[in-house]
């Protein structure tokens, strides 16, 4: 029987959005606004999924009249390495996107009906929102406007007909059904890869980039944006607050920050949890045999501790610090006012993603991407700017949603190709055919051994990165011995696989880039090298293996020219 229905439950839509976090939710809302039939699916439950509900609830933006200047600054700060078209588009779109989100019911804090707007830096503004309830509110609007939704569906692979993307395969985690979604356009919005390491990023495991790669879409910037934050070891959680760095000390009880950054010890500075200077100081102390590093808040009152978290974004980090202190007391049995606590740099997530053009389209017809799963090079190789995580997800989501909907208005529907679908499903289901003698978690923890240590991923060097790649190879070998009893296991298998892909690509691209730039630092090539490396690294599947290529930054086509 060569009927698609024999392979699983077939569901048809115009636009299929994979992942209902900030990017996917915005994409779905905008696609619907542009008259498409939209289905939004997520492996978690929509409204509580992804990173936004557990994030800080910050949306930063600049006003349109400052957008040009902002984009110019970003361009100069990234040494012209950014995709200026996207930087300017993001700059111009941010304020409108904030208003759109308000209209869509995002839970902004308001005073007498007006948004609370805080000045966060020169010409940068932020509005805060109630993060836990934010996606629930957008979901309500999306449902009212006719977006269809399915919870607990784990999308693993794309369906193709010839070169076109025509849908995706999803596992029904609860109902145990295999779904074949047939769509005119698919938007991948499944986030980047947090390797289930830092807790805030446990939900994003590189699935989107992996499925895009398998379908032959191009990835870009895999070597950038790997970043570390510092946090409390026992909780496995970052410590939000701008003055805590003053209280970091080594095993001997000596304060550490002044040794390396004396300028931070006088006057008032905002040193955030992702500040690389703190990670530097911690690492230098440990390398000098003076570790571990502690935070010593002994003798301070709770109010004083909360005060250390003080920020221009009033109240926010204050609240988060209080939460963290509460967790310490209740969960770890530690009284932060009486004993010092060990601190660890913590690895956040890998960078890069599916390469998108100015319309949010990937290199494949019918495939769009948004949020952390996409990479538009707006900030060059840098991690961007604080507070722009949600904003960038929203703008890329709106852009992809609008353009995918317009595309589906003109494009004809392509049916699912039976043979391609059958082969893809066989691949997806293969781990169910054997019992296996390795748990998928072992693969994930093995991958942590490759991506988390700073000697591999922060101070990069060819020999050590090859060691890291050997660990990834070992993880892949372990993966081949993972079996699955049910769809929960099968999903864990595929998560582990996407993590191995993310780690492999990070190091392959980082090895190729023989220079240092933005967050990518090579001990063996410590200088920026514009002569040889003023280009982006792309990764694409050719004959079953990843092929790395370069793409010159087309600065001659942009507004600002490199002088």
């Amino acid at each position, binding site marked *: 029987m060569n009927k698609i229905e024999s392979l699983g439950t077939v569901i048809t839509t115009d636009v299929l959005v994979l992942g209902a976090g900030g990017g996917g939710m915005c994409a779905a809302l905008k696609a619907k606004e542009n008259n498409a039939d939209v289905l939004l699916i997520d492996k978690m439950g929509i409204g509580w999924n992804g990173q936004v509900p*557990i994030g800080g609830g910050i949306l930063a933006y600049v006003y349109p009249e400052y957008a040009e200047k902002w984009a110019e600054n970003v361009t100069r700060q990234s040494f012209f390495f950014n995709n200026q078209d996207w930087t300017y588009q993001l700059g111009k779109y941010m304020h409108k996107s904030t208003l759109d989100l308000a209209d869509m019911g995002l839970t902004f804090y308001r005073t007498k009906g007006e948004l609370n707007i805080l000045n966060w830096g020169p010409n940068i503004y932020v509005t805060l929102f109630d993060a836990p309830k934010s996606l629930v509110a957008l979901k309500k609007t999306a449902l009212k406007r006719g977006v269809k939704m399915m919870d607990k569906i784990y999308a693993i692979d794309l369906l193709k007909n010839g070169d076109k993307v025509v849908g995706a395969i999803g596992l029904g985690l609860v109902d145990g059904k295999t779904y074949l979604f047939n769509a005119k356009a698919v938007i991948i919005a499944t986030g980047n890869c947090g390797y289930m390491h830092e807790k805030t990023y*446990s939900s994003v495991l590189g699935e989107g980039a992996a499925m895009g790669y398998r379908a032959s879409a191009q990835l870009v910037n895999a070597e950038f944006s790997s970043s570390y934050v510092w946090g409390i070891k026992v909780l496995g959680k970052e410590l939000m607050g701008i003055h805590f760095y003053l209280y970091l000390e080594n095993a001997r009880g000596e304060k550490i920050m002044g040794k390396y950054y004396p300028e931070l010890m006088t006057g008032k500075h905002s040193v955030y949890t992702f500040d690389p200077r703190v990670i530097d100081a911690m690492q230098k102390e440990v390398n000098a045999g003076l570790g571990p590093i502690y935070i010593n808040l002994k003798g301070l009152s709770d109010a004083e501790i909360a005060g250390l978290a003080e920020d221009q974004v009033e109240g926010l980090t204050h609240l988060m610090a209080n939460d963290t202190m509460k967790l310490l007391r209740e969960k*770890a049995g530690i009284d932060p006012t009486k004993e010092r606590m060990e601190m660890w740099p*913590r690895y956040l997530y890998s960078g890069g993603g599916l390469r998108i053009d100015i319309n949010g389209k990937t290199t494949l017809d019918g495939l769009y991407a948004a949020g952390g799963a996409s990479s538009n090079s707006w900030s060059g190789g840098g991690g961007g700017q604080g507070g722009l995580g949600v904003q960038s997800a929203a703008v890329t989501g709106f852009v992809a949603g609008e353009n995918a909907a317009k595309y589906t208005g003109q494009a004809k529907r392509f049916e699912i190709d039976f043979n391609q679908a059958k082969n893809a499903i066989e691949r997806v289901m293969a781990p169910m055919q054997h019992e296996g003698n390795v748990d998928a978690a072992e693969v994930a923890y093995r991958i942590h051994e490759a991506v*988390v*240590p700073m000697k591999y991923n922060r101070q990069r060097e060819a020999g050590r990165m090859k060691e890291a790649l050997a660990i990834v190879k070992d993880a892949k070998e372990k993966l081949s011995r993972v079996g699955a009893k049910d769809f*929960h296991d099968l999903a*864990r298998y595929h998560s582990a696989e996407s993590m191995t892909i993310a780690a492999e690509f990070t190091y392959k691209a980082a090895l190729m880039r023989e220079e240092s730039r933005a967050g990518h630092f090579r001990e063996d090539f410590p200088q920026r090298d514009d002569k040889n490396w003023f280009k982006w690294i792309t990764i694409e599947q050719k004959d079953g293996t990843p092929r790395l290529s370069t793409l010159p930054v087309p600065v001659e086509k942009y507004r600002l020219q490199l002088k």
Partner: protein
Amino acid sequence: MPIRNFYVEKCNGCGICVACCPMDVLRLDEKMKKAVVKYPKDCVACWGCESFCPRGCFDVSPERGRGELVSPY
């Protein structure tokens, strides 16, 4: 196990914990209208369920169900 206590008697079956769990640890028992800790070992102690549960049903410890974190040094 990271979920050291789940106070099932307080659970009203709202499903928020199932929705917010990134690791698919929790499921809803449709008949009982209660959450179930179905895959306890896969919990990474993110505290999503504990933070978002409107009834205070969860007590999650910091240890992960399947091994601890690798040193960054």
